[in-house]
């Protein structure tokens, strides 16, 4: 993957639902590697995802993918994006293969190309023997993995994960995180991983802390902690948000 393809620039992005301001003047860049977007529920993470995926129309500010304005790219920008939403979006009555082929078709892949792309990913995410199983029969962790496989099967440069570990046990979360890290490092994908869990960001990850629609911190996790003369991320988060730990 070309690194310039895997870049996102968000500049002074604001969004409001009527009178309620959900995002204020958000600016950050994404490049290959994992960027953790940390914020409690209601911080504006899902609104930011909806703007990046163009589910919502931009009101103020600018988003650029690979240096092209998102407004100009319009729906074509979605070819560069893989998205996993917080809410499960698989069709429960269809099997794994049918779900993947449906998504592949929406990205211009025929059934055989969809499966050819998906099978190595299924193998990487430990789902290679579940192709004919109804999605309804998969456990929560496997559904999440399948959604990530689906998000990656058209080889996007940018992967957006909105609380992908929600509902997983600690072992499942660690395993999912590790698998995504390996895949994205190998393929030079820019990942934006939204979470409200303080133990998910790694010391080397880029970190964005979003609180009440404002970006309070932007930088490498370890460096941000050191800059504020603190011991760990929970302290940094509490310090910046002046709230008890989520």
């Amino acid at each position: 993957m070309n690194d310039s393809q895997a870049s996102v620039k968000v500049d002074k992005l604001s969004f409001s639902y009527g009178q309620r301001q959900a995002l204020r003047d958000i600016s950050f860049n994404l490049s290959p590697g994992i960027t953790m977007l940390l914020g409690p529920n209601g911080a504006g993470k899902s609104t930011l995802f909806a703007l990046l995926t163009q589910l919502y129309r931009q009101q103020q500010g600018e988003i650029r993918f690979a240096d092209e304005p998102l407004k100009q790219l319009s729906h074509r920008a979605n070819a560069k994006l893989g998205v996993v939403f917080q809410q499960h979006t698989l069709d429960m009555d269809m099997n794994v293969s049918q779900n993947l082929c449906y998504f592949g078709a929406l990205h211009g892949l025929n059934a055989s190309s969809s499966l050819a792309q998906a099978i190595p990913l299924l193998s990487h995410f430990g789902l290679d023997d579940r192709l004919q199983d109804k999605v309804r029969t998969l456990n929560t962790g496997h559904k999440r993995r399948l959604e990530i496989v689906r998000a990656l099967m058209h080889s996007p440069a940018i992967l957006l994960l909105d609380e992908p570990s929600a509902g997983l046990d600690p072992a499942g979360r660690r395993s999912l995180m590790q698998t995504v890290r390996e895949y994205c490092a190998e393929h030079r994908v820019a990942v934006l991983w939204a979470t409200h869990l303080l133990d998910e960001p790694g010391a080397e990850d880029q970190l964005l802390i979003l609180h009440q629609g404002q970006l309070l911190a932007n930088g490498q996790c370890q460096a941000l902690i050191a800059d504020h003369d603190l011991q760990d991320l929970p302290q940094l988060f509490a310090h910046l948000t002046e709230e008890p730990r989520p």
Partner: protein
Amino acid sequence: MIYWYGFSGICKRELLRFWSQKSRFFSALVRPLLWLIVFAAGFRAALGIAIIEPYETYINYEEYILPGLCAMVLLFNGMQSSLSMVYDREMGSMKVLLVSPLPRGFLLLSKVVAVALISLLQASAFLLFAWLYGIEAPLTGYLCALPAMLLTAMMLNTLGLIIGAWVRQLENFAGVMNFVIFPMFFMSSALYPLWKMQEASQWLYLICSYNPFTFGTELIRFALYGEFSALAFWVVTLSTLLFSVMAIASFKPERRF
């Protein structure tokens, strides 16, 4: 090619969902069959039908309401598609559709055509059962009725999309039944010819005359007898275009997700 894959993917998904909900198919058949076998039999004596276009002779009531019941199958399925859109939105699968690199208008209209094809299957199955029951149309009429039913289904589905864009919860579908489906069906030429309606009430006749569902019903009625109603065709076609534009314009996810 990407457009073809996208369109066929959406059609295939609708077919798979339809196949996995066989009870929906049977319930969609039971409703018009009850009207045909029970209601029409009861009203046969009360409502004599004089010679009107496109019929060449006096017909019995069952024969008269056959096109209207076909249109009813399309109407219910079209409105159920609006329900399925609310379901898709609640389940999040609408997001998957909208993050595709295809234009939003194309995706929505593909869904309209996909649902119309399902409606066509259901209406064709109803015609088959009606034929088995003894209510027959000329063989060529059945072939002519297919495009007429497809076009009518598309008109009703685009109307369903507009409604689906405004309905927030699944529970509101009961309101759609009461305020859209029943008035559209009863205030049309599906159950009684318009001249009979005019005898009863002038204002009701006027409403029926301007109801797009009336034109859908008449388009199917004429097609079933191998004839073409140009007026009905143009009204249904233009209504489909108008509703399509309105559906795309009124679809704003920021109001919903």
